[in-house]
């Protein structure tokens, strides 16, 4: 062993080689649909108090990863560990106990809150399944505490979703997710449906809650400006696999994967007149996950691709050029011709 002392901080969430395949449908009466492997071997770790952003375009599998974590869909392969528990290896009652640690915040606060429930009922509902979290007598006060925590007026506890604005609804959703005192929130596009001026309010709220409660976030987004602001680490997905992951700053300032570079360069700057770099405009669209390209999944759209890329799929690795950078600033990339060769 080398002389470095590894601080044994255990991840809250440890995903290894996750595979999720949506089965196809038979074709007796309807047209047969092929099975789709939406997530094809993804490994991720999230540590206490940190934000990992999962970015990528539609169809890349990022939402499927989120749904697998919170148990909304069945996994096909690999393991998901929350704390010390392997969710796949446990029976129903045990998984329910562990799932409490991981709660989800959805994109659209208009469709994900039951319109017939008051904020109080929405926030207390999780305690029906996990009654030991808060004693029944303490629940009214706990609802009010949670409302105040997310910046809502506790006296509005008996209002219905339609009486709240979009930003306030997202706050109710966050309060509901916090009701079970989780360690990890899976946030699937939590601000995408909100107006610009409201987005900033919710982003600040998430940062405040992380500081106060030591929460970890899996933050799924397609908006790279938001990701850059809020996340500590980033994983970029393309067609069911991770193309590149690493600390946010490293990834944004020196992307190694051509796809990461193209994604970053597609962000429209607010001040193009100060921009000096040229823009990468990728040809074509993302291929269908039902029929991914052979070799590197990105190669048909990549300007650096050659026969190697068409023939063999690159694995996620740390580049040699990065071996001198400190371990906590290193990124990993799955590319045969990474961009570090040009720097």
């Amino acid at each position, binding site marked *: 062993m080398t002389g470095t002392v590894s601080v044994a901080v255990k991840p809250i969430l440890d995903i290894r080689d996750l595979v999720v395949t949506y089965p196809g449908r038979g074709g007796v009466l309807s047209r047969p649909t092929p099975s789709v492997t939406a997530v094809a071997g993804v490994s991720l770790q999230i540590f206490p108090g940190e934000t990992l952003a999962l970015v990528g375009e539609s169809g890349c599998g990022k939402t499927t990863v989120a749904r697998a974590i919170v148990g909304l869909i069945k996994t096909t392969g690999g393991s998901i560990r929350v704390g010390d528990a392997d969710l796949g290896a446990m029976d129903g009652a045990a998984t329910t106990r562990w799932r409490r640690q991981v709660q989800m915040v959805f994109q659209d606060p208009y469709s994900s809150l039951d319109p017939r429930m008051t904020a109080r009922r929405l926030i207390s509902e999780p305690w029906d399944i996990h009654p030991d979290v808060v004693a029944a007598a303490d629940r009214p006060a706990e609802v009010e505490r949670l409302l105040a925590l997310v910046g809502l007026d506790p006296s509005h506890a008996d209002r219905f979703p339609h009486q709240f604005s979009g930003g306030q609804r997202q706050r109710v959703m966050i309060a509901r997710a916090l009701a079970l005192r989780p360690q990890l929130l899976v946030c699937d596009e939590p601000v995408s449906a909100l107006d610009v*001026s409201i*987005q900033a309010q919710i982003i600040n709220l998430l940062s405040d809650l992380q500081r106060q409660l030591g929460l970890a976030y899996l933050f799924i987004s397609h908006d*790279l400006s938001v990701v850059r602001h809020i996340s500590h680490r980033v994983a970029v997905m393309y067609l069911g696999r991770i193309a590149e992951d690493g600390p946010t700053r490293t990834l944004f300032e020196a992307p190694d994967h051509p796809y990461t570079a193209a994604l970053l360069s597609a962000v429209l700057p607010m001040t193009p007149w100060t921009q000096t770099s040229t823009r990468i*405009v990728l040809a074509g669209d993302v291929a269908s996950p039902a029929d991914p390209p052979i070799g590197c999944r990105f190669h*048909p759209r990549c*300007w650096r691709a050659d026969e190697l890329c068409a023939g063999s799929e690159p694995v996620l690795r740390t580049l040699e050029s990065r071996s001198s950078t400190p371990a906590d600033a290193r990124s990993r990339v799955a590319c045969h011709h990474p961009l570090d060769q040009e720097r």
Partner: protein
Amino acid sequence: MTFIPVRSPGGEAPLGAPTQPRPGPLDPLLRVEHLRVAYDATTTPVVAVDDVSFEIARGGSMAILGESGSGKTSLGLALIGLNQGRTTKVDGSVRLDDLELVGRRREELEDIRGARIAMIFQDPLSTLNPVKRVGDQVAETFTRHRGLSARQAREAAVDTMARARIPDPRRRASDYPHQFSGGMRQRVMIAIAIALGPQLLIADEPTTALDVTVQAQIVQLLIEIRAETGMALILISHDLGLAAALADDVLVMYGGRMAEKGPLRTTYEHAGHPYTRGLLASAPRNSVAGSRLPVIPGSPPRLDQVARGCPFAPRCPDAIDLCRDVMPLPRTIAPGHVAACHLASGREEGR
């Protein structure tokens, strides 16, 4: 799902709208004066757009920026008379060259739409007919407006699809919309829009439903087509970056009214209205990672509740009693730059 095995050359095109020659302001392509759109709801009428005036030069471009409920889409629809009806009342004036569009009969507007003004929308899937071949939908424009035969129209449609950079247009013309990807569908909409060489294209959130790399392709296409044709553009969006990529001028809407209007760069760098300043500051792209974002407190006003003073006053950090009582009128703070704020002053005096 389309899949085009074409390698992109790594991208050389610099970002930014093409600079168009700007003729004098005395001869604008489109002149909008005191436009007002009211929807007659069951209880109180909702005034979605109130007292909006602006001009667009030939070949010019303007972004109408605003959040949901700011009236930006109602404004866009009113420009081409699409929100007509018994419950909608449009007042004021929209002049295209010498042609007044407000109050014009539906049949007359149909001749103008497509031929002189075209519009594309956010969601191309819901604006294309799902049971009709894409080529026929593009060809329809030519049979309806130019009286071409079916065969001629089909040829013209293939040419137009090629101009929208749809690969293999002859084959794709016989496909149905569901066989196209989101980006390709928006190219079809753009093909239909540019088919007759309109003087003005109104694009309402043209890239909001698209992935970022596809958004970059559509932005590129719009820039190239405008450079080729000299077509003027009105972009309706909430995206400050998209506006910066496509427009020369910007008009910021708030609560159905014009908050600010001016050349894009000047407005972004020296915003005269506190709402514009708040919007620019709260965008995460301007911020230091991990820091708190500056926020605009509260939420946008509901348009069915008529306020007396400035619609932004309840959220404004600088509001004084005057703002709550009296609606501010647009005032010039620099040449071509106006802000509807009591506290806005000329740039020389500082702000």
